[in-house]
């Protein structure tokens, strides 16, 4: 090739290289612009479409709006695909142009290539080469320094995970005998959730101002809607505020606060969810097995403490997502602490925690919406059952392994608070505002069509749980209708309207039934087939909790105080003959 042709070829290839290079830059910029502006995202990012769809939700029958949306939807889809096609074709054009640029640029460069001139570099200088070597060593060492700094830097951003639960030494397992359990009030509504104690001196009246019938009155350190429980001389209560979850032990004889134990959660304390005033951060009632007391709070912190107030274990089951705040109380079966966490159909579950360690023994998902009812453990023909209520099912489980035994559909209320009850061989389940079901707890699977013994729409409770001594069933509505039924048949024996608001569940002590209004007005009626009010007293403060009954007295939590109330004569009401 002669010099002229070579020059022409060089200049030609340079010109092509410049032209294609400019094209590459322009096309690259255009593609980048369209990407960063989201032009190919289209449909999913159209604010106009989102706005119109919002309007359609408010005016679902607006046909012109629908047409408008359809048209816009179609246009956006077409535009999106057009933009995608343009983007793809643009990228292809960019690649072809880049290939042309590289080919012409390489050609131009090879045509202009000159042999290097080592003489121009001068002689090699040993000192410089050594300095270069040293410089390289320092640079490599710097890389190590930078890597070390990066390692330290990233480690400072590590998130502290909650530490593992501290294993506790095994404690000899001792399950209290049934008689021992019956002699105490170890859980919400007593030993079996019936709210009944056969031998109890339930006072007919008292007078807070004069002190008549008031054995003692103690201030509760922290607020809560949980009810007291008793084991021997120990009374337990929970309370909480936004910062602290605490368990309190009172002396049942004197009312003295023996200890107050704030829970120490492993890791950072989970913040409290928003709860309603009617629920509080300490709505669930604790439970005891005679060795330890177990408590759960609104932020899903659950813990075990011994009777000396020492925390045995504490863990968090949350976070919980509950419209009013978690309110389901704990239940216990042998070494299993049973927790009903109904948070919504996708997340509701039942857990059994090892009472010694707090670790999961089993978990069972529940097809249940959010609920506030508490589970009960019952004995059916010598076999234990864990019975739960939640929209829409009443479900019986085996508390040993969490397997489902039976289920009955019929609870369609979205605000299910009343807990189930076992009376007269039937599980009583309340569907607020609609119906009360009596279910035979046998069979397997869905027994809705076979096991519902009776239904009634009389006196259906909305918040308060039912109570029964096995012979009579008491239902208390939120607006004060107290109804006595035959648990065998569901027939109404009597009904009386107290015309007041009630959250507190009724309790039966021997021959008397006690109900307390939200304002703290207590009514005692006779546990009989006819209505007869025996007394009416004022607690002097609000009350939304359920009393715990003892042989000689009852314990009742008001808004601020814990009361021990007793019949001044100290008679055991149960000794009264049945009418």
């Amino acid at each position, binding site marked *: 090739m002669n010099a002229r042709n070579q020059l022409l070829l060089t200049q030609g290839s340079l010109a092509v290289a410049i032209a294609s290079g400019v094209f590459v830059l322009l096309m690259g910029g255009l593609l980048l612009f369209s990407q960063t502006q989201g032009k190919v995202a289209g449909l999913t990012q159209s604010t106009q479409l989102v706005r119109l769809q919002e309007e359609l939700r408010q005016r679902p029958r607006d046909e012109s709006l629908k047409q408008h949306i359809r048209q816009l939807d179609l246009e956006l889809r077409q535009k999106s695909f057009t933009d995608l096609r343009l983007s793809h074709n643009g990228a292809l054009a960019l690649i072809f142009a880049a290939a042309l640029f590289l080919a012409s640029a390489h050609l131009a460069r090879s045509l202009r290539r000159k042999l290097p001139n080592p003489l121009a570099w001068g002689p090699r*200088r040993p000192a410089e080469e050594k300095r270069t070597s040293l410089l390289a060593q320092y640079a490599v060492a710097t890389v190590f320094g930078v890597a070390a700094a990066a390692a330290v830097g990233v480690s400072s951003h590590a998130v502290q*995970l909650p530490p593992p639960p501290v294993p506790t030494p095994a404690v000899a397992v001792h399950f209290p005998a049934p008689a021992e359990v019956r002699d105490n009030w170890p859980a919400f509504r007593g030993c079996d959730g019936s709210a009944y104690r056969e031998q109890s001196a339930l006072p007919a009246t008292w007078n807070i101002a004069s002190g008549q019938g008031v054995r003692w009155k103690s201030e509760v350190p922290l607020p809560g809607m949980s009810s007291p429980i008793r084991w021997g001389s120990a009374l337990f209560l929970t309370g909480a505020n936004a910062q602290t979850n605490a368990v309190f032990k009172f002396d049942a004889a004197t009312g003295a606060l023996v200890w107050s134990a704030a829970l120490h959660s492993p890791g950072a304390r989970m913040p409290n969810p928003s709860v309603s005033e009617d629920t509080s951060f300490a709505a669930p009632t604790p439970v005891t097995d005679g060795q330890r007391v177990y408590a759960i709070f609104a932020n899903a912190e659950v813990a075990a403490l011994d009777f000396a107030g020492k925390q045995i274990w504490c863990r968090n089951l949350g976070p919980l997502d509950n419209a009013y705040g978690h309110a389901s109380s704990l239940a216990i079966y042998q070494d299993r602490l049973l927790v009903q966490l109904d948070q919504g159909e996708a997340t509701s579950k039942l857990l059994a925690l090892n009472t010694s360690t707090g670790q999961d023994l089993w978990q069972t998902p529940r097809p249940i919406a959010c609920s506030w009812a508490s589970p009960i453990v019952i004995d059916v023909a010598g076999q234990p059952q864990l019975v739960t209520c939640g929209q829409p099912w009443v479900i019986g489980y085996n508390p040993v392994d969490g397997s489902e035994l039976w289920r009955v559909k019929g609870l369609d209320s979205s605000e299910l608070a009343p807990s189930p009850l076992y009376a007269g061989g039937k599980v009583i389940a309340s569907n607020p505002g609609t119906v009360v079901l009596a279910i035979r707890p046998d069979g397997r699977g869905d027994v809705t069509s076979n096991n519902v013994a009776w239904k009634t729409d009389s006196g259906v409770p909305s918040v308060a749980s039912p109570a029964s001594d096995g012979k009579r069933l008491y239902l208390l509505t939120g607006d004060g209708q107290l109804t006595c039924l035959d648990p065998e048949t569901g027939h109404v024996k009597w009904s009386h309207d107290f015309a007041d608001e009630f959250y507190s569940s009724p309790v039966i002590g021997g021959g008397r039934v006690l109900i307390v209004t939200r304002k703290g007005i207590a009514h005692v009626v006779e546990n009989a087939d006819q209505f007869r009010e025996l007394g009416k007293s004022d607690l002097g403060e609000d009350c939304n909790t359920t009393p715990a009954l003892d042989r000689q007295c009852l314990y009742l939590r008001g808004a601020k105080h814990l009361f021990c109330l007793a019949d001044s004569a100290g008679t055991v009401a149960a000794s009264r003959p049945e009418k």
Partner: protein
Amino acid sequence: MSQAVAPRFPPPEFTETSHVLPVPTAPAVRELWFEYLDVVVLIAALVFVSWLLLRRRSRAGVVATGIFSVLYFGFWKKGCICSIGSIGNIAQALSDSSFGVPLAVLFFGLTPLIFALFFGRVFCAAVCPHGALQDLVLLKPVKVPPWLDHSLRMLAWIYLGLALVFAATGGGFIICQYDPFVPIFRLSGNLTMVLVGVALLGIGVFVGRPYCRFLCPYGVLLGLAASVSKWRVRITPDTCTQCRLCEESCPFGAIEKSTVEAPARPRSSDKRRLLFLLVLLPILIAVGAGLGGVAGSALARKHRVVNLAERLQLENTGVVSDTTDASTAFRASNQSLESLNADARALRRHYIMAARWCGAWVGLVIGLKLLSLAVLRKRPDYEADQSRCLGCARCYRDCPQELQRLGLPVPAPPKPAAA
């Protein structure tokens, strides 16, 4: 094979029209025999490039094969299966017996290494689409200062260590995740990675193969294998005349100068420095291991379980107020937070152990690099460093002996400038 396919757009929300929504479809899975064809093409290309480079000494042939590799392994195969990325698969399979490696991936991972043991980095020369693409864009090479070149090359060793940590602990294949050129081959992908790839190509116009030299973790392994290769790239086909014409011909800084005509270096402090570096080596290893342990918890965040546990902890403690898709899905899944935390803690322990090894590895390679820089080796000829030479064959044409061998006119040596 069943596939879960997400539609590109949400389907129309109107159901009362008679329009029948098409069923989403996905491209059919690539036939298995294609993978075996890829392996055959890979081996054939390696053999061909070995012949071109070591026997034929053809730069044009290497370039042509490189273009083929960019088209076939790059644009046609969309950059996968890729030898570089196979490191992750193999590392995970070695650490987790339940993880199987497809035969084709194994071939892609090991064959170039075996070839490197015998013929040097012939894979990098023209078979790797990443390398070939960068080689094609190199128009005006500038010399990277040796101190910078040596230090930047250490990044690839660190990257390799991290890639092995993440792959062996289930944290993902970061080599594939952060591959800068695959999005270009696929004409789609994460915009950031596309921009990184374009930036690397832009830098590659002036700096020879920046990814291959300073970042490629597979290049580290190939370099190690090539350092003991029996046959190697030789700049001159005959005897080196010490003409120095090839001295600046390598755009990758892989040519080691002859020591024959080099004036003696002052050696007074060399021995002390060498001794110091020998003592420093175990210290660097220990410090590296310690720092790796420190960073282990943070590295563990790459694992989805640890990431989720940490996210939930931040949400639960109120440090962050929003939620992520993963945390929302976990809450809806009914799983135990405590068992998630237990899994996360166990994974963190694995990561800390793996990161300690990685740190020790970094300390070791840095220490050895410092030692190698402090040691003066005698070389009779100008020669390509076996571990760094990428086999581009550019240096051949700068050697007068090569021109003579090809029967081409040998230009007269330039005259020294008049004083």
